[in-house]
């Protein structure tokens, strides 16, 4: 399940919904990315998507990860538009019979979102906005899975 939302979302509620009615699932790994405080007024960052394309690309990637890691399920909730400090930007959840697959797939999906998913992030600071591109660390992270 992939959801892009312009509204703030509740990671805990989404996690509980994801965990419900899983008779065969032993392990749910998850990750929440939070917007850090900037010290400036207004949103901490802004995310742009390519409506339609972005959902489909992420959906396809997640479906392949589900196969690859033999997951029972995976879900991504991603904010778009302006985001205030302290709000959740992204939530990734993976369900598997055992924890290793759940952890690895969650980690992998985050590496993908950071450097390959069609999303564009602008961070606002005291000096205005700055488009974020994948860092060296992000590129090294995604390269681990090749």
């Amino acid at each position, binding site marked *: 399940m992939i959801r892009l939302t312009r509204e703030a979302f509740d990671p805990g509620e989404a996690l509980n919904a994801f965990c419900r009615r899983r008779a065969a699932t032993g392990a749910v790994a998850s990750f929440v990315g939070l917007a850090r405080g900037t010290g400036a007024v207004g949103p901490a960052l802004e995310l742009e998507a*390519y409506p339609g394309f972005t959902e489909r690309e992420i959906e396809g990637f997640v479906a392949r990860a589900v196969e690859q890691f033999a997951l029972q399920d995976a879900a991504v909730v991603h904010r778009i538009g302006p985001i205030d400090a302290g709000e959740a*930007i992204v939530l990734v959840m993976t369900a598997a019979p055992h924890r290793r697959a759940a952890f690895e797939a969650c980690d992998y999906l985050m590496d993908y979102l950071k450097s390959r998913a069609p999303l564009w992030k*602008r961070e606002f600071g005291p000096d205005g906005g700055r488009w974020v591109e994948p860092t060296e660390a*992000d590129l090294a992270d995604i390269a681990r899975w090749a």
Partner: protein
Amino acid sequence: MARVLLFGRLADVAGWREREIDPLPDSLCSLRDLLGREDPALAEALAGRGVRAALDQAVARGEASLAGVREVAFMPPMSGG
């Protein structure tokens, strides 16, 4: 006629996010040249590392034909999460 979309940094550099282009040139690289001729800063940005294109929401490369295409998107390096 087709819509051209720019995302992220590319839209900021060009000063627009969406434009109608009529007629469309034959290929993706000709369209890139056309946009770049009017705006050297955009030309440089489009030639930058990691810029990708999609034709009708499918990822495409430079020589791709634009025949019948309704929407062309130029996308700078991606970063979500």
